[in-house]
């Protein structure tokens, strides 16, 4: 399979749709290909959030460690999904563990690098802010639905 440049990959990711070629080049400059094997962590709760990932293939679980209970799975993310937005906002710390559930290929982005470019180019910053806000909105809606427990427990609960 011919190697595609990061710039090509950035052009294909739905997250970055609508950006100009120059903007895509800027972003690609902070990106790299990575593979995580099943069970490997992309991030750990409390670590510095200097990166975010966009899943090209595979599945990632967001989890919280709980004493004596094993990890509590909050949600799973699949192809095309963005993992991590704490790189954008202080204190730049991961709130959850992110663990690959199967072999997962991602484009990994250096958060500090990209933050620097956004500080220098506010238009780029605005475009990225918009896209991440949309991602967060989507996640929030889905999470709210999840909280509602619409299916209900066994009769009586």
């Amino acid at each position, binding site marked *: 399979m011919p190697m595609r440049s990061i710039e090509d990959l950035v052009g294909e990711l739905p997250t970055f749709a609508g950006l100009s070629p120059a903007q895509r080049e800027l972003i690609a400059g902070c990106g790299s290909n990575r593979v995580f094997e099943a069970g490997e962590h992309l991030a750990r709760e409390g670590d510095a959030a200097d990166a975010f990932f966009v899943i090209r293939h595979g*599945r990632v*679980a967001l989890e919280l460690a709980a004493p004596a209970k*094993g990890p*509590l*799975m*909050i*949600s*799973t993310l*699949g*192809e*095309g999904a963005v993992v991590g937005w704490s790189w954008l906002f202080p204190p730049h710390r991961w709130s959850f563990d992110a663990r690959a*559930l199967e072999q997962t290929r991602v484009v990994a982005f250096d958060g500090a690098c990209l933050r620097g470019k956004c500080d220098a180019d506010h238009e780029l910053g605005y475009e990225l802010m918009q896209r991440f806000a949309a991602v967060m909105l989507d996640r929030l*809606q*889905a999470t709210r*639905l*999840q909280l*509602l*427990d*619409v*299916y*209900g*427990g*066994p*009769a009586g609960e």
Partner: protein
Amino acid sequence: MSAAGPMTPRPFRVVSRRQETEDTWTLALEPVGGGAASTFGPGQFNPGQFNPGQFNPGQFNMIYAFGVGEVPISISGDPGGEGPLEHTVRAVGPVSAAICRAEPGTQLGVRGPFGSSWPLASATGRHAVIVAGGIGLAPLRPALLGALAERERLAGLVLLCGGRSPSQLLYREQLEAWRDDPRLELGVTVDSAEPGWLGNVGVVTTLIGAAPFDPANAVAFIVGPEVMMRFTVDALLDRGMDPADVHVSIERNMKCAVTQCGRCQLGPTFACREGAVMSYAAIEPFFRVREL
């Protein structure tokens, strides 16, 4: 056979009883006295219309537990099958609990089938997208089995299942089999995981964005709690589906199932006749009005 009135149940025997989850059982019923003969005399009611054993996917029967009461239960079995009539029942009240407790050999009363059905015929050459939330998979199962049986007629078949947790998913053995079945694309997700769960976690709408179907050439069938159906409809429409191609299932109080008790109305619709299956385009103006 005497000509029975539309409110008179016909005795059926429980042939088998299988527990699906903590509060849900699947019962298989067959008519006492055998045969699939109509309860009604020629000319009084259309014999083909009031025969519980012959049903279209999406229809329901009124099931009576002796001395306790009667509730509408979707038929969840294979519409093309010859075997007993299957119903998956969740124990949410005294009547459904009594039905769930019925051991093989018990006789229950059955009236039906009633209601509208999933428009599988309109799926020819198109993608059929089935989205089931919780026990919603039960009334959708006949549509799925019907689609699998005629798979060549469809352009694609997608099944998306959401549930509260892994232990509350229905038909788990069949879901496992369908995972490897090349005839359909299966997505399963739960709201809350249990230890050892390797599947998806999140609401069922999260599966819609990446589901493999062409929204410009698809029909969708959705059943689940009303909140889930609303958000699923929104997600499908956001992907570009036509509201006339999206079908939901209306749940309302029913005592008669023959448009005479008045209780199942949603706007001008009688859920026992124009429903439970309705196209979203048809029901939309009423579906969104609170407490209609």
